[in-house]
C-alpha cells in the first residue's frame, strides 16, 4: 500500500452475550464481528458487503464508536498519528467525532421529527462549539446548496415530514459532512429510497467524495450499488471477511466460494441473460458460539476435510491486494 492508511482494523472483535437463564449458568455469545482485519487508505472508498448476520452493520458502528470492541484494535490517523479509538476519553472522543461521521440507512428515522433542517444539520457544530449562530446559519445554507437542496433558504427551516425520502437523505448527508470529517461510514444510505432517487444520492456522494477528499466505508447488501460507489470490495460472512480486493478484480475474478455464490445470486436486469443457480448449500446460520473451523464449512460446495480440521483460514494475498480466506484456493 503506497499511501499511509487512514484506518487500520486489526483482529476486530465484537461479541454480544445471549440472554441466559439464571439457573443454566452457561454463557453463549453471538460473534457478530470476529477477528476482522483490513485497512482503508486516504481518499479510498471501501465497500463492505454481506448478508444479514454478516457483521457489516456492527463493523460500521464500531468504526464510528457507537459501540466499543470486545477485542482487537481500530486505529485511525487523526491529526498525524494513529490512535486506538477504543481508548479515547472525553475531549479526545469529541475531537474524534469531528473526524469520523456516519450516514444512516433510514432517512425517515435518522432525523428528529421535531427539529428543523437547520437544527439537525447544525447539531454537530453546536455540540462541538463551533461558530456563532449566524456563522452556523450561513454554513448550513452553504451545505444545503452543495447537497442539491436549492434554494437553501426554503429548506433551512423545514421539518422532516415536509421533505421526501431523497431530500431527507440529502439532509443526513449534509449533517455528516458539515464538520468536514476525514472518514465517513455510510450504512446502506440508498436502500430505502426509490430507484430514481437512489442514483441522484449516489451521484451526490461520489461528487462530494471527490470534492471534499472524504474516505468512505460503504456498507451495503447490494453488490451492484457497491460496484458503483467503491473501488475496493470486502465480502463478509458470519463475522469474518472472506475476500477483499479491488472491486473489478473481485467481480470478474472471485476466488472464495461464498463470493462466487453471492455474485451468481444477484438478479441481472437483462432478460436475455440466464443466471446459473448459486453454488451453495443449506441456509444461513446465526454466528452463535461458532465451531473453531472454517466459518463457511457448513455451506461450502467445495469443502474438504482440511477445512473442518483447522481454524478459520487466514486471509492470504493472491496478488494485487486480492486476499482470500480459504484453504482450497
Amino acid at each position, binding site marked *: 500500500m503506497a499511501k499511509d492508511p487512514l484506518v487500520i482494523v486489526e483482529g476486530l472483535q465484537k461479541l454480544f452475550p445471549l440472554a441466559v437463564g439464571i439457573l443454566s449458568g452457561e454463557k453463549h455469545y453471538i460473534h457478530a464481528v470476529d477477528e476482522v482485519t483490513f485497512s482503508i487508505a486516504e481518499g479510498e472508498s471501501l465497500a463492505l458487503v454481506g448478508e444479514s448476520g454478516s457483521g457489516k452493520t456492527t463493523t460500521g458502528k464500531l468504526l*464510528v464508536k*457507537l459501540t466499543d470492541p470486545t477485542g482487537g484494535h481500530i486505529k485511525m490517523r487523526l491529526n498525524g498519528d494513529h490512535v486506538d479509538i477504543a481508548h479515547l476519553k472525553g475531549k479526545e*472522543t*469529541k475531537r474524534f*467525532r*469531528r473526524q469520523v*461521521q*456516519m450516514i*444512516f*440507512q*433510514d432517512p425517515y*428515522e*435518522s*432525523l*428528529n421529527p*421535531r427539529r*428543523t433542517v*437547520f437544527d439537525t444539520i447544525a*447539531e*454537530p457544530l453546536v*455540540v*462541538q462549539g*463551533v*461558530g*456563532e*449562530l*449566524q*456563522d452556523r*446559519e*450561513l*454554513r448550513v*445554507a*452553504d*451545505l444545503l*446548496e*452543495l447537497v442539491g437542496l436549492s434554494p*437553501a*433558504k426554503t429548506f*433551512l*427551516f423545514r421539518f422532516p415530514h415536509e421533505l421526501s425520502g431523497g431530500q431527507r437523505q440529502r439532509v*443526513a448527508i449534509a*449533517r455528516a*459532512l458539515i464538520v*468536514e470529517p476525514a472518514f465517513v461510514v455510510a450504512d446502506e444510505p440508498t436502500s430505502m429510497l426509490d430507484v430514481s432517487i437512489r442514483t441522484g444520492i449516489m451521484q451526490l456522494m461520489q461528487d462530494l467524495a471527490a*470534492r*471534499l*477528499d472524504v474516505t468512505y466505508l460503504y456498507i451495503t447488501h447490494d453488490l451492484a450499488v457497491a460496484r458503483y460507489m467503491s473501488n475496493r470490495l470486502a465480502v463478509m460472512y458470519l463475522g469474518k471477511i472472506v475476500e477483499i480486493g479491488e472491486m473489478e478484480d473481485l467481480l470478474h475474478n472471485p476466488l472464495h466460494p461464498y463470493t462466487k455464490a453471492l455474485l451468481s445470486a444477484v438478479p441481472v436486469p437483462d432478460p436475455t441473460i440466464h443466471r446459473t443457480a448459486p453454488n451453495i448449500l443449506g441456509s444461513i446460520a446465526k454466528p452463535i458460539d461458532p465451531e473453531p473451523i472454517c466459518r463457511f464449512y457448513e455451506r461450502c460446495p467445495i469443502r474438504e476435510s482440511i477445512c473442518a480440521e483447522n481454524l478459520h483460514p487466514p486471509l492470504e494475498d493472491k496478488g494485487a491486494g486480492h486476499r482470500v480466506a480459504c484453504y482450497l484456493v
Partner: protein
Amino acid sequence: MAQSTRIGGAPRVDRAEVLAIPVWRIRLNLMWRGLRANAALFAENPIGLVGLGIILFFALMALAHPILMSTVWDKGTYDPVLGIDLAIPLHPTAPSATHLLGTDPLGRDILSQLMWSARSEFALGVVAALVTVVIATTVGAISAFYGGLLDTAFMRLADLIIMTPFVTILIVLSALFDVKLIELAFVVGITSGFGGAAIIIKSQALTIKVRTYIEAARVAGGSNSHIILRHIIPNLLPLSFLYMMFTVTTAIFSEAVLSFFGLLNIRMSWGLMIHTTEYTGYLLDLGKWWLIFPASLSITMLCAAFYLVGRALDEIVNPRLRRR
C-alpha cells in the same frame, strides 16, 4: 469562524438573503404555525371542544367574580365567606331575584361562593399539573436513559405510590399537618408525578432512546445531557402535557373529598360548600337542592371537562387513534 478549507469554491449563498430574518423570529413563527395546526386538529374533535367549552365557562366564572363584587354586589351581603343577607331572617333560602342560586345555611350567597371557588380550583389544578409534568418527565427520561439502579428505584417508588390508596394518604397528612390548598396542589402533583405518569413517560422515553436519530446525535458528538435535553424530552412533552390533564382531574377531586371531610384548611371551595351542607344537617334534604347540586355539578363538570380535553389531546399525540 475561519473560512472552510475543504468545502472550497466561491460561497454558494447570498449572505444577506440567508440572514435576512433573525432565527428567533423564524422559530416563533414555526411555533405559531405548529400551534395553529394542532388547534385545527383539536377542533375536529367534538369531545375536546365540549371540554374546552366547559373550561372556558368556569374560567369566565372565576374572572367575573371580582368584577361583580366591585360593581353590582354589595360586599357585606355577597362575600362568599363572611357575607350574610340580613334582610332575610331564615337561611338557607331558595333561589330568588337577589340570590340567583339561593343562600346557604349561614346566609351566604351560593352563586358568589361558586364563582369565587372556581378561581382556586383552577389554581389548584394548574399548580398540580405543572408539578406532575416536571417530575414525570424528568423521572421518565432519566430512568429510561440511564437504567440500572436509578431506574429500579424510581419504578419501585412508582409501584408504591400506585398501590397506596391516595385518599388515605391525604387524610393522614391532614391529620398530621395543616394542609392548605397550595400544599394539596404539591402533594397531588408529586404523587402523580412519581406514580403512574412516570411509568408511562418512561416507556415512551424507552422507545425514543432506540431511535436512529439518537444514534445520529451521538455520532455528531452529543453528550448524554444534550441528548436528554434536546432530543428525548422534547419528544416526551406532548405525552406529559396529556397527563397534565388527568392530574387536574385528580387534584380537583381530591380537594373535594378532603374539604367534604373538613380536613382542608381553606376558606371556601366547592367541596367546602358540600361540607357546610353536611354539618348543618341539610345533606339529605333534597328539597333544598341548591345547597348541593351547584357545587357537586361544578366539580363533576370541571373534572369531566379536563378529562375530555385530555382524551382529545390523546388523539393528537397518538395519531393511531385518529379517525382518518
